[in-house]
């Protein structure tokens, strides 16, 4: 961190914390966090937590870390507050870290602030950039962007996945230093619940985000609603294109109000002010309406196109690169047919 900003002439001790995956490797967000740490001048230490950590340490043996600290054991394979916080706290103390960087996954998001509190430090989460002069993060649900720094140490920074190019480094045989942690928990993780494959509409790694608006459930040109047909068209496109489904709040709220709606749509699909702001290379919105704040769901989508019958649609004008003034039912049916024919 730039001494001119921090007022501190000492080098930072940077600890990057990561969990191992079920196969013992490190996932992309962890590699992104290590890459992000290179923007700060200091000594890098990597802390690994999981059932077995050697494979992960070997995977990043050439990352330039001065030390690999590990907390290992079957109890640390489960994403759970008590064990994750205890492991992170122990490693941070062993490292005497001044800056701690974690990927803002659901697992680290659950404990990041709690860990900082245990270390008498502070945490900043949902960080989108780390530089020599501080961090970048958004406020008011992605409606304003701040650049900031802080004097408190340790400073835990949780960086959002997809904001940094992942680390590429040589694998090898890393020497690890185990850190002992004794902790118990009254919570047991019992599994993951996911929709059936055909109903799984959220695909974070998809190139395209398909956004469905409430217009799909409204009366069409013939004066009637066509919700089952809309569901068939949308699901057909999602399965043919392997894109991820986002939804406007209004469409999701209709689901909660018990009206006939798209059966695969839930609050998990919601993007925007009270939903997520996913990162995808491209976004195609259909039957969406509204101005800010609804359009913040687009914030991190690079190329955007929209289909709407309203040429003045606030969702699209000034927000999308191309607006097709057309009937989304007709267009998407043909798009899916063309994709299926390929």
């Amino acid at each position: 961190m730039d001494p001119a900003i921090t007022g501190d002439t000492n080098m930072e001790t940077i600890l990057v914390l990561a969990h191992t995956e079920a196969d013992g490797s490190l996932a992309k967000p962890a590699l992104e966090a290590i890459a992000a740490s290179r923007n700060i001048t200091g000594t890098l230490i990597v802390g690994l937590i999981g059932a077995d950590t050697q494979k992960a340490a070997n995977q990043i043996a050439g990352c330039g870390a001065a030390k690999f600290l590990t907390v290992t054991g079957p109890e640390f394979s489960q994403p759970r507050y008590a064990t994750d916080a205890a492991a992170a706290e122990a490693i941070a103390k062993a490292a005497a870290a001044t800056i701690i960087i974690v990927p803002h996954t659901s697992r680290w998001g659950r404990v990041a602030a709690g860990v900082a509190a245990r270390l008498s430090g502070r945490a900043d989460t949902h960080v989108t950039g780390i530089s020599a002069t501080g961090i970048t993060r958004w406020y008011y649900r992605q409606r304003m962007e701040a650049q900031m720094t802080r004097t408190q140490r340790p400073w835990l920074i949780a960086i959002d996945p997809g904001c940094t190019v992942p680390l590429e480094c040589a694998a090898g045989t890393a020497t690890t230093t185990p850190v002992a942690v004794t902790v118990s928990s009254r919570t047991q993780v019992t599994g993951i619940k996911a929709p059936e494959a055909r109903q799984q509409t959220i695909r974070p790694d998809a190139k395209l985000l398909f956004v469905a608006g409430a217009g799909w459930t409204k009366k069409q040109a013939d004066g009637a609603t066509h919700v089952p047909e809309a569901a068939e068209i949308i699901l057909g496109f999602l399965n043919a294109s392997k894109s991820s489904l986002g939804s406007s709040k209004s469409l999701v709220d209709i689901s909660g109000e018990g009206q006939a709606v798209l059966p695969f749509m839930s609050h998990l699909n919601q993007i925007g002010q009270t939903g997520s702001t996913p990162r995808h290379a491209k976004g195609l919105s259909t039957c969406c309406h509204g101005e800010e704040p609804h359009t913040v769901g687009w914030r991190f989508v690079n190329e955007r196109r929209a289909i709407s019958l309203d040429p003045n649609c606030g969702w699209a004008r000034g927000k999308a690169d191309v607006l097709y003034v057309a009937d989304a039912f007709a267009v998407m049916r043909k798009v899916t047919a063309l994709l299926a024919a390929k």
Partner: protein
Amino acid sequence: MSLTYQIVVCGSLVPDPLQTLEPVTTTAGPALKNETMLPAVLDPWAGHALFEAAYLAKNNPGSKVYFVSLAPKAKLQQVMMTVAQKAGFELIAIDGPASGFTEAADVANALADTIKTIPGLDMSKLLVFGGWESASRGAGATMQLVGEKLGITDQFQGVDQITVAADGSFEILERVEGGKHQASKCAGAPAVLGWATGNLPEPPNNPQIGMANMRTIMPALQKAKPAKIAAEGVTFASVALPKQQRQTKIVKDMSADDIAKEIIAWIQQ
């Protein structure tokens, strides 16, 4: 076995999402332009937490819901006019800023210190609810910090469902990546639950509940203690609205076939 809970819901106010927000710089740091004039609403995820708390309390007779809120009390009073009609609770108000630019640690300290003063607080019955993130700071930090201050290490974030078993244990569904939920079983209270949207629709206004709540809300607002909330140690180099205006190409009078072909070509680029 009869289960009763003390459910403490933490929640604050945010500007009405339909308002245009613009950052300004003040001597105390960044703020929103005309912040005191902006209409406020209950933070959406805190709202879900409150509705889930009321539902849980209703299904476990003898349980009680407390709503602990740190916000400017004049605005809190306005928002309570609506919120109080939706769920039964006892308000415990703390007078302070609801700005997104304040420190989560300061807010959490004020909330936790207040929770500790609830008469008859029983940790074996305590469930601390709140939104997993706010629509202001959006850090997902406050609930964790409140839990740490209260010594609660069974914490869950992005909760969409709690199912209580007869033995007092409960299953929690937390949001994880890829539109999935992680299922966990916790032995019982105390626990901290940072709610996502949950499964319940927003309750309709019920004037009877509102009348009952208002009898305690006004005294609670009058008794609201001021809290010192700041952002010590933080330096904001800039706070700005994103440059988001795009030159949108409007395509009219193109057939569905041609649009479809163009979209396919674009997707596959």
